Structure formats: structure tokens, C-alpha cells
């Protein structure tokens, strides 16, 4: 006969230590929606002590086992941290005596509880580790069977007599999962059974168990993606530098855990982005909801897009609090032709390319001649007349059915194609002037009396109002604007579509328009004439 209590204790402690290590390796904290548990237990019925006795002597030997059972339990989420629990067990007490070599008596008592209850994880929202304690209660029938087995050598008979009865009762329990992975946990719990609803009775008493639980189904979410709002549904390749800092979308994420988590949104547009872009891990306090801006990194390859095409913005949300939970989502965008412009004046400046090698070389060649002065007005006059001599002309945009966007040619394309409409030519002029260090601004006119908008250019002479007479004795031919240092400078309006007629006419036309529309008709004050600096 031996008592294995000490050995069991050692193994139990070892198991706890291993589980503790696992806690660091795989902190989880989020229970899946279903679980099936297998447990071995000791049920201390009616204050009996734990017994395991094996005496193999052929005569007078005995086997004694009390309160040992096997439990099968299933749990399923009802709501958040509340679960329904079903338990089925078989707990036996066996006492067998060997009278002789071939004779013996055995008393077998078996309790089969069939229990239905609820389980609650009170700290699921607060604990970040793998230990998930729970409390539970339930009730059901306890099927109690008692068998008496007698084996006699002389008759050769085995006599089994038994009685069975069903008692109703309930239990309360407390226990914990120690999660190894999101699907496997060590489970240890204690129950107190009230058979026949009595705390003291033949089968009432505490029960302790240890086993494994296998879980499956959806984890209760660490975070929830509340929604994705696209800020930019239509991508215009010319603005690719703008998009590198401007969010294309906002992903609204809510922290469902009861502790702070960190989230990162990774974005990618297949075929168009140079690489994945991370938002960086952003801390979300418990129950906090936040909009995470999504930006992407476009490369110059976007400028090769030669037609409208759909594209998919792929997003991966990573939430971490010990472990990492990833979710993916996507949104559909439209990428437009590289020359498309949505009419937003603030963005027209992205078509201006003063650093284009061809523009810079051409401008240098034109203005490096000794006879040309270095002041902005002379430079502008020279480049404008040179462009005129190149035969650049005003031309209408092509009509593209059902396509509302404007087309703006890049300055080099305008040069190659021999002309363009007002926005093409104004962008061309701005590119050349900016490449020579002359500040420019677009003047947009949305005349309420006209169906179409118009565009012309302002460029800075770098001269102050005190020097105005050196440009013109008529103050209506220039505009006084302040720069960011608070200095007033003279700017000249230039109608770039009048390339054929030369600089003086383009200036006169621009100034006349500005005077009439912006000043006399109050367009600037009323807001239908706007000035947009090319930065």
C-alpha cells in the first residue's frame, strides 16, 4: 500500500511552474467562444479522505479508490465574459477485497452528475496575462448508483446487485484557465456540490480537478474595427507627393479589452506603392475609440499611369497587448490618368515642375545671355517671348465623354505638344518662372456670369511699392501682395494663353482681367477670384 499524495503534489507544482513559464511565452487573455475540457478530479464526498490503496496479496488483498472521477465539460459564450457550461462526469468509489485467490467482494459507488450552469470570467477585461479565473454555478441531476459484486469460487457465480437513484442538486465553482495557446489551456478548478440541495450529505462536498481544455471559435475581440472612412476615393497621380503625408483613409478602432492596447495600421496598394507604410503603434486606453489615419508611400511610378484604373487599398490592423491580433480589410479606390486634375486649385501646383531637368536647362539657356537683365521682369519677358517664338499655342482640352476631370499636361508635355489650354500654359509659365527663382501664384476666376472658370498667373517682381514707378507709372498694372515676412512686393498678372501676342499684351490682358474681376467687380472680396501661391 502506498500513498501517492506527495508525488502528486510535486507533479502539480511542476506543472504550475511550466504553466507560469508559458504565461510569459504566450500571454493571451482572450477566451474563444467554445471549449471542451477533460479533467481528473477528486470529490470529497461526505468528508471521506482521499484513498488509493492497492494490496495485491491473493488472499486478504484489497483495492481501495475513493472519490476519483473523470469530467467532460463543454462551455460556450453567451455574451462577452459569460458562458453557458455543461458538465458530465463519472465519479467512482471502489472498495474491493480479495477473499481468496478466486473469490472477492467489491463495492462500487458511482455518481454521474449531468449539470448545466453558467460561468463568468470576472477579470477577462483586466488581466493581460494567460491566467483567466472564472466563477460558476449550475444544477442538475446527480445519478447515484451503488453496486455490490460478489464472486464465489465454489459456485462459479458472479453476483451483482445494485441500486440506483437520481438526486437533484447544484454546485458553485471557482477555477482558472492557464492558457498555453489561444486554443489550449490547463484548467484547475474547485466545486462544491450540494446534492439533494444539502451542504452536508452522502454525496455533497468539495471537489478539486485538474485537466486540459481545448477551445475553438472566435476569440472575444481585443479591439473592434468600427469602420473605415475613405478620405480620398479618387487618386490623382500628379499629387503623389501630397498623398505621402495626407491620409487616404481613417480606420476607427475601439479597444474592447479592459486594459490599454497598441494598434498599428499597415497600408499597401498593390502595384502602386513603393512599400508598406505603418502608422506606428498607437496606444489606445481601455474602451477608447480612435481614428487612425492611413497614409501610403507612392513612388514616381504612379506618374506612369496612363488611364483610369481601380485599385485596392489593403489594410492590416495589428493590435497588441502581449500577443498580437491581426485583422485585414480593404477599400476600393480609383486611380486616374497621370494628367487628370480634379479642379482643386490648391493641388494644381503639383503639376508645376521647376526642378525638371529639361525646364531648368531650357530656362538657363534663355536667360543666361548677357543682354538680359537679372530682374524678374526681364527674365519673365525673355522666357515668355522665347516660348512665343517656339510656336506654342492655346488649344482646347480634348472632350472625354462622361469624364469630368480636367487634363493638365506636364510642362514638358506642353512643350512637346506645342501648346495647351489655359491651365497647361499657366502651369508651364509657372514652372519656368519658378525654375528661375521667381515666385508665382495662380489666379482662379469663377465668374458667376460665366459657365467656365479661368486661370492666369501672377509673378513676383521682387520690387517694393517704392520702386513701382520703375515697372509702370500706372498702379493698375500690378498687384501689391505681402510675403510671409510682411514685406509688400509688386506682382504682375500674366495671361499665359496669349503666347502668340507677346509679353506686353499678356501682361496688359492679365492686369485688365485682375482689375476688372478682382477689383472693380469685387471678385476678390466676394470670393470668386482667388489667388493660390505655387509653393
Amino acid at each position, binding site marked *: 500500500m502506498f500513498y501517492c499524495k506527495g508525488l502528486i503534489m510535486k507533479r502539480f507544482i511542476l506543472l504550475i511552474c511550466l504553466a507560469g513559464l508559458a504565461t510569459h511565452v504566450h500571454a493571451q487573455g482572450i477566451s474563444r467562444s467554445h471549449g471542451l475540457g477533460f479533467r481528473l478530479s477528486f470529490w470529497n464526498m461526505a468528508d471521506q479522505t482521499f484513498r488509493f490503496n492497492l494490496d495485491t496479496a491473493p488472499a486478504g488483498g484489497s483495492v481501495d479508490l475513493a472519490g476519483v472521477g473523470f469530467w467532460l465539460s463543454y462551455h460556450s459564450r453567451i455574451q462577452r465574459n459569460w458562458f453557458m457550461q455543461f458538465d458530465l462526469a463519472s465519479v467512482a468509489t471502489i472498495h474491493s477485497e480479495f477473499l481468496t485467490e478466486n473469490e472477492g467482494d467489491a463495492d462500487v459507488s458511482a455518481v454521474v452528475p449531468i449539470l448545466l450552469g453558467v460561468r463568468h470570467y470576472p477579470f477577462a477585461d483586466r488581466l493581460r496575462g494567460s491566467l483567466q479565473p472564472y466563477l460558476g454555478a449550475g444544477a442538475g441531476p446527480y445519478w447515484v448508483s451503488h453496486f455490490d459484486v460478489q464472486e464465489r469460487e465454489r459456485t462459479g457465480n458472479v453476483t451483482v446487485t445494485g441500486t440506483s437513484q437520481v438526486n437533484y442538486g447544484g454546485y458553485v465553482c471557482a477555477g482558472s484557465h492557464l492558457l498555453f495557446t489561444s486554443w489550449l489551456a490547463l484548467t484547475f478548478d474547485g466545486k462544491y456540490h450540494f446534492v439533494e440541495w444539502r451542504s452536508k450529505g452522502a454525496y455533497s462536498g468539495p471537489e478539486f480537478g485538474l485537466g486540459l481544455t481545448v477551445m475553438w471559435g472566435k476569440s472575444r475581440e481585443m479591439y473592434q474595427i468600427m469602420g473605415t472612412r475613405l478620405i480620398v476615393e479618387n487618386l490623382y497621380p500628379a499629387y503623389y507627393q501630397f498623398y505621402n503625408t495626407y491620409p487616404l483613409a481613417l480606420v476607427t478602432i475601439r479597444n474592447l479589452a479592459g486594459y490599454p492596447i497598441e494598434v498599428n495600421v499597415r497600408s499597401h496598394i498593390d502595384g502602386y506603392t513603393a512599400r508598406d507604410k505603418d502608422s506606428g503603434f498607437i496606444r489606445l486606453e481601455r474602451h477608447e475609440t480612435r481614428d487612425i489615419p492611413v497614409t501610403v508611400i507612392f513612388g514616381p511610378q504612379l506618374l506612369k499611369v496612363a488611364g483610369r484604373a481601380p485599385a485596392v487599398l489593403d489594410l492590416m490592423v495589428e493590435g497588441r497587448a502581449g500577443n498580437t491580433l491581426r485583422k485585414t480589410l480593404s477599400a476600393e479606390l480609383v486611380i486616374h490618368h497621370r494628367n487628370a486634375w480634379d479642379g482643386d486649385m490648391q493641388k494644381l501646383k503639383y503639376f508645376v515642375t521647376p526642378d525638371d531637368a529639361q525646364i531648368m536647362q531650357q530656362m538657363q539657356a534663355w536667360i543666361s545671355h548677357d543682354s538680359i537683365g537679372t530682374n524678374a521682369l526681364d527674365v519673365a519677358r525673355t522666357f515668355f517671348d522665347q516660348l512665343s517664338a517656339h510656336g506654342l499655342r492655346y488649344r482646347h482640352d480634348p472632350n472625354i465623354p462622361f469624364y469630368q476631370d480636367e487634363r493638365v499636361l506636364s510642362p514638358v508635355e506642353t512643350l512637346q505638344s506645342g501648346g495647351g489650354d489655359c491651365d497647361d500654359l499657366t502651369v508651364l509659365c509657372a514652372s519656368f518662372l519658378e*525654375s528661375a527663382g521667381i515666385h508665382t501664384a495662380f489666379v482662379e476666376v469663377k465668374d458667376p456670369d460665366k459657365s467656365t472658370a479661368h486661370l492666369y498667373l501672377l509673378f513676383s517682381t*521682387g520690387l517694393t511699392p517704392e520702386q513701382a514707378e520703375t515697372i509702370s507709372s500706372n498702379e*493698375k498694372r500690378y498687384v501689391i501682395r505681402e510675403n510671409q515676412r510682411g514685406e509688400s512686393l509688386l506682382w504682375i498678372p500674366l495671361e499665359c494663353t496669349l503666347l502668340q501676342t507677346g509679353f506686353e499684351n499678356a501682361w496688359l490682358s492679365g492686369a485688365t482681367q485682375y482689375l476688372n474681376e478682382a477689383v472693380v467687380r469685387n471678385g476678390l472680396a466676394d470670393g470668386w477670384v482667388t489667388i493660390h501661391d505655387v509653393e
Partner: protein
Amino acid sequence: MKILRVVFLLLFVFAIQLVAQPAARILSQHGCVLVRPGLSESWQEAKVGMALESFDTILTTEDSEVLIQTQDGGRLRIGANIILDISDIKRLSEREMFLWLVSQKIEQLPKRQDKTPLRFGQITSVHGEEKTAQTALAAERPRRWRAEVNGAATLLENAFNTNTIVKCHKILRHYPEQNDCGEIHFYLGRAFEAIHHTGQALAAYQQALQRLEVQGCGAQTHSGRRQEIETAVARLKQSRMIQ
């Protein structure tokens, strides 16, 4: 029936004339009066009955005077040594005036970043005209400024209060270097006071006083204006207290 047709025809002709009516017309003149059409660089002599458009500018020299009729039928006598744009005498509503002021303020907030590779820097040299020509132009400037300020005073005297305010701001913008000893702000204060904008009037008067102090204007020369401004400030403060 024929009479009806004639009446309709006359009405049509009258309507056309109304639509085509110039912004102003010269009724009479005395001395040398010049007109600069639109964006032209040159001046031409004015004539009685001459039609003036919104873009045109009228200039009276020493000892000259002109009487013009505006589009709304009003008459304006312009004394000697004055420059006025015809658009200056198109009566502005208060809303238009404030919109203009706001638009100017917005326009004064450009965002600019230096980035272009071939920058010459802001150039202060000019066309390359002879120095004598530049000197002549520079000498001309104070006279033009004086004529512009006189124009603002004329507008104020003729109760073109909102127009005066816009004109004064234009002068301040075009001639930042001129030392006016608070004169323009004094006109601004009076114009704002006339349209019952006490706050702006008070601010303008106080600015006028500051300019009198800071710019080292002779106390004797401008004692009359100083006294007028101080009286106006006291009056406005008192009216504010009563309110």
C-alpha cells in the same frame, strides 16, 4: 399702333443708353485736367462731355478743378492737385467695403517656402534706366502720393465714407514709405465715425495719434489735427461709456 411702336422703340433706345452709360462724365473743367484711360501709361487732356470708364483715372494739376457726373446722377467737384480713380467714386456699400478689407487681410497671408534651385533672390535692381530717370521717378512719387491723399480727402468731404476707407487703405499700401503724420488714419477715423463704427474709428484715431508721435512730426505744424483727433477720441470714448 404706330405710336405704340414708336414708344417701344424710344424706350428701347433709352434703355440701351442707360446700359451703355459711362461710369462718369465731365460736366465742366477749369485749368489743366488730365485723364489716363485704363491701364495706359500716358495721360491725355480732359474735355467737357468726355465719358470716363471705371478703369480711368483723373488728375487735376495746380489751380485746376473739374466737375464730374457719376453714373447714379450725383455730382462731384474735384479740386486742385488730386488723383482719383473713377472706380473710387462708385459708391460702395458697407458690406462691399468690409469684404474688400477682409480680402486684403486674407491676401496678406501667403504661405511661401523657398525651394527652387535656380533662385536669384528677390531683385531690387530695376530696368536699367538711367539714374536721372530713376531720380525723376522718385521725385514724382511724393507728389503723386499727395494727390492721392487729397483724393481721399475729397471723397470724405463728399460723404463717400466707405470709398474713403478703401482709398485710404490703398494709399497706405501703395505708399508705405510716405510720412503722413497721421493724416490718412485721421481720415479713416472720420469715415468710420461717419458710418457709426465707433470701434474702428477709435482705433484709427489712436493710430493717427501714434503716427503723429512716432514719425517726429512737428508739434506746431500739426497741432490743429492733433487737437481734432484728441477731441474725437474723447467724444467716442464718452459715447461708448453712455452706451
